């Protein structure tokens, strides 16, 4: 697989579809830690990419920042291959009751 020539956005999309719940994270990022705790408290096991441990991670981070306009660039959450966003969007979705149905649809949650 020719990793190098793939458009970074494309790469992100591909990575995001490799799990029901995908989180782009940094190992040292505490907000990432918070979002991971949130999902595990709901009984969800997300697929996590620690970008600071990925050789291509920096590029992905930069691209994410460009797409979302957030600072910091992580965490970014995808559910069912679709972009949910940073912690604030995830939390908002959880509070207004849209996150759980989304998770169920993606097969990340049962019951």
């Amino acid at each position, binding site marked *: 697989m020719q990793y190098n020539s793939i458009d970074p956005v494309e790469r992100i999309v591909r990575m995001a579809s490799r799990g029901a719940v995908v989180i782009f994270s940094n190992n*040292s990022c*505490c*907000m990432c*830690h*918070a*979002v991971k*705790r*949130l999902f595990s*408290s*709901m009984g969800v096991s997300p697929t996590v990419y620690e970008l600071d441990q990925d050789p291509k991670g920096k590029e992905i981070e930069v691209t994410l920042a460009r797409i979302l306009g957030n600072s910091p660039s992580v965490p970014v959450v995808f559910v069912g291959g679709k972009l949910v966003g940073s*912690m*604030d969007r995830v*939390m*908002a979705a*959880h*509070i*207004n*009751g849209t*996150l759980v149905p989304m998770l169920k649809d993606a097969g990340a949650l049962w019951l």
Partner: protein
Amino acid sequence: MQGFKAAPSPTFNLTNSDMFCQSPFYLRDNEGNRNVTSSYADLGELEQVTAGGLHQESVADLSRSSMYTSTMMKPNNVPHFTNALPFGVLTTSLGSGEMGSSATDVVDTGQFMFQEVVQVNNSTITSTMVDVGNCGVLGNGHFENWGDSYLADHSLSQRTDTSTDVDTNDKYQFCEGRHESLIVAESGGVQSKGICHDQKALRRLAQNREAARESRQRKKAYVQQLENSRIKLAQLEQELKRERHQGSFVGSGVSGDQSQHANINGASLAFDMEYARWLEEHQRLINELRTAVNSHLGDNELRVRVDGVMGHYDKVFQLKLIGTKSDVFHMLSGMWKTPAERCFMWLGGFRSSELLKILGNHLEPLTDQHLLGICNLQQSSQEAEDALSQGLEALQQSLSDTLSSNCHGSTGSGNVADYMGQMATAMGKIAMLEIFVHQGDLLRQQTIHQLCRILTTRQAAQALLVMSDYMSRLQALSSLWSARPKS
């Protein structure tokens, strides 16, 4: 004494000045003015109390403290009352009365209390000194304050038509006599003796009226001025108090230059003042909402008021965002909250899941659907809070690790670079702290919005009232606690 019109209008927006009216005021009402404020000065220490300018907390103190039992209480930031306390205290409960009673009820009670109190005072007043409007008999020696023409007024005014012996030195007699003469004058005309003095008398009467009017205006202006300065003083005291708190907070931190300290204090002060203003407005909106609920207004009107309260909540979150960006430690410290509220604080604000638990008991009966909605909301807000708390713990640990690494205690040029590097990393982590506090606020904001979404208008109104009352009680508790007699 003619019956007075009770000062309080049937809203909650009574100022203390209204309440401290004394009956004799209404004895004369030539211009239809109720120079309410001029009775202030009589009451010595009571003079110092105003509703308008006091920080909201103080006003809350006055109204919510169990004044009926503790007359010796010294509420926060308010100069203590003395003998007149029961009088003053009873009436101040009208000031920002909420606590679950209906607007009309409270006002009725207030009027009743008013009358009661006034009657009590009446007897003392007529027997000792009388404040008859313009006569302005004040404590001891405030006489001269009303301007040079005061004495002139006295010598001119009243007794013009009924008698010629005006004894301006004996103020008591003077005032009583004046009372009589006023009634005579008001009952239509100069029934005087001496037709030959008619012209003169008429002219004198007119001059007197004019002088009296001017004097009243001057007095009003002066009292207004006094009141304003009092308000300002109370505010300054508040700020000073806060600055002192912050001074100890900031001073123990990194030794920056003075300007940095000043900046931080300035930002904190700005937030504190804005928040105080926000609280006042919030209380007003809540009172309006309560009135609406109790008078069984239609859903549409109710919805307008609910939206008003919600929109106002959004403003505080805006304020907090600015406050967090300028001084996150101040927000986290909770020094802008009352002590009891601070005790329950989480991540720079209230805990939404707690509030929802409280609501659960007050919103019955709920349909299954509503019940489910609230349960889900409670659960999701709890989960979000826990997640943020854990993230925060990780942040604290990380900060601690950063600051404690390379603590050799040895000298060497390399260590300076290390130190700077450490500090830079630590600064980055503090920036992360700001993000966490902001997330906390977002969580709070989203929770109350969702609450209003899932409930009916009436239930949402109830919920907002319950929440607000709960906060108010925490605030009241704080005042009571700080005012408790310390042996």
